[in-house]
């Protein structure tokens, strides 16, 4: 594991709803090293998904900095942030977020629309990634013809196909049964073993304690606890 390449300093995200201010994320400072498997845990409404969105460049903080390889994501323009999402980030969601009218391979290919990969190579890369995740026989199936586990694997393929620096997974097992959840966690672990940085948001402490190198616990928008699995051993 090398030095940190994603680091937040005093990050706040405040939403304004009429006269009311909601501090979804409050003064969060954390560090993610290249090749690390980081777990962010906490109960519903603790701010872990909001933090993940900030780290993934889907949202920008109200204050604080998010440093990615020397670039502050908080100060990036919207097009630059989109570029960051396209080239550096892969996202996996609890509800898979596959486009229902597209086949598995088309859904995966879609992630390459926003990269510099030529049109001709897209399909080939998408196919290889799906085959890697044992979905070679499901290429032309639409999401509604796939099981939950398969859909999530397609979503992982979509996140992986552009070879990102980091994968953010927001409750990836939340909609899956135990067996499928285990399979997905194993895939993520395998990818991490291959050197990919993984940030996993979940409320399943068992999952993070089994696979993560470092765990951040959040409550009321703040990091209340931080430990590495080494510490736990």
């Amino acid at each position: 594991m090398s030095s940190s390449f994603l680091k937040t300093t005093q990050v706040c995200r405040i939403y304004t709803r009429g006269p009311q201010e909601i501090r979804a994320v409050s003064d969060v400072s954390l560090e993610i090293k290249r090749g690390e498997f980081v777990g962010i845990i906490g109960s519903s409404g603790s701010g872990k998904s909001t933090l993940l969105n900030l780290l993934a460049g889907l949202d920008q903080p109200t204050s604080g900095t998010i440093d990615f390889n020397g670039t502050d994501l908080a100060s990036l323009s919207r097009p630059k942030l989109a570029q960051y999402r396209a080239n550096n980030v892969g996202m996996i969601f609890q509800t898979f977020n596959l486009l229902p009218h597209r086949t598995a391979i088309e859904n995966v290919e879609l992630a390459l629309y926003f990269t510099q990969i030529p049109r001709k190579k897209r399909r080939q890369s998408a196919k290889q990634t799906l085959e890697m995740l044992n979905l070679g026989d499901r290429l032309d199936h639409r999401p509604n013809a796939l099981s939950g586990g398969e859909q999530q694997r397609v979503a992982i393929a979509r996140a992986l196909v552009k070879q990102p620096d980091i994968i953010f997974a927001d409750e990836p097992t939340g909609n899956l049964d135990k067996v499928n959840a285990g399979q997905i966690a194993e895939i993520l672990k395998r990818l991490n073993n291959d050197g990919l940085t993984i940030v996993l948001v979940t409320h399943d402490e068992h999952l993070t304690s089994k696979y993560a190198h470092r765990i951040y616990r959040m409550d009321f928008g703040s990091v209340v606890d931080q430990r590495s699995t080494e510490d736990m051993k």
Partner: protein
Amino acid sequence: MTIRDVIDIGLGNMWRMKLRTSLTLLGVVIAIGAFVSMLSLGAGMQKNVSEQFDKLGLLFTIQVSQKHQEEGGDTTKSPSLNDSVLTKMMNLPGVQLVYPFEDYQVTVSFDDTVFNTKAQALAVNALETKLFSTMQAGIPFDSDSAKQAVVTDEFIDSLKITEPDSAIGQKLIISVKVATIDSALIHIFMKDGKFLWDRLKGIRFDSLFYREYRSRVVRREFGDAVGRFIDGYLNARTTVSDTLTIVGVLNETRQRFRVQPIILPLATGERFSAAGFSGDMTDLIGALSSGQLFQSSASPTSKSYSRVTIDLKRGYSHKPVVDSIRAMGFRAFSYAEDFEEITKFFTYFDLGLGVIGLIALFVSSLGIVNTMMMSITERRREIGVLKSLGAYEREIKLMFLVESALIGSIGSVFGILLGWGISRVASAVSKIIMIKQGVDPIEVFALPWWLIAVALLLGLTVSLIAGYYPSSRAARLDPVESLRYE
């Protein structure tokens, strides 16, 4: 994201929402169809007029005539339209040919038929101008002095000849009764076999000492002498005849432009006109007022024409020639000026029809806005996913704009086809009506390339304008909220 990706996504989405897209498309198709069919009526009418003008060479034809006194507040009288003036006109830049227009009443004998009609004389080169050159059969005269005639097809109808070709080679005897000053003067002295002195016998010379009687006799006899002069001029005419061979038959459309039923070679025709006046009362008054009555009409320098036609060289504007002729003191009528007015009228006409079409298009654009807004609402989560995958705002905007443009362009293409279909049906119906009313059927609709281009461009522009707001809204959507959207 390439433009092909954007089009693929747009087409895919339209295909997915077939019913909604079809209904929106239908709105555009109907609007563009209405726009095209209405403007094709204007374009067709304009095309007809310009084709007629062009076919007859009217855009290069100027009619020159003398000004009547006090015409339009202008009290200056035109100089005489004689051969020296014609030469001056011929020397104006851009003038190809100047030829006089003269017509006379003639009597035609053909087989056993005798009837009166009008004839005009024309030089061979004038007959070759566009105004005359479209022949149904035959050829122009051999020379200006040939004993030949070119006739209109309406004229051969009156000869009971049905085919223009069978008229070629037929002989016509043309006679002109011409009045001369001699016959008019003789008429003063002799009328109805009675000499002037026979009338004078009725005068009581002894009573001439009485002033009242004397003035009554003078008034009566003077009036009577004038009456006899006019009567002699108009009625006691001599007849000039010639046998001419028909060599050509002109198209009847020429009739509309004052081409007389019989056209004679210039020198042949002069034989009739040089002999005297046609017997038309207005000619007599004109001749009296101009002082030409007692001049020898055979003298070429003094011969005056009532009307002259100028044929312009191609590519020259009518304006400088018309201006020069007006500056010479003549009245100049240019069909090109008329055509400009007609073109102006059609511009307003097209504009009026276009506005109606645009209203329909505006209504259809509301349909596009509605469809796009619904599409954005339904695809909100998709927009979130695309943004999470790294789509730029401008790419999202482009995606929806292209979708809107696709509706506009596909709608325009089918709208043009619909408009063309409507115009074909309307054209067929109008032709049936024209035939039933005994009018030659003409094509009143036209679909020129510019109209197709305008319709396509308009459909595309309106759809882009309609899609602009929804696509901007889609581009601005917050990715986090969009991903949460159920």
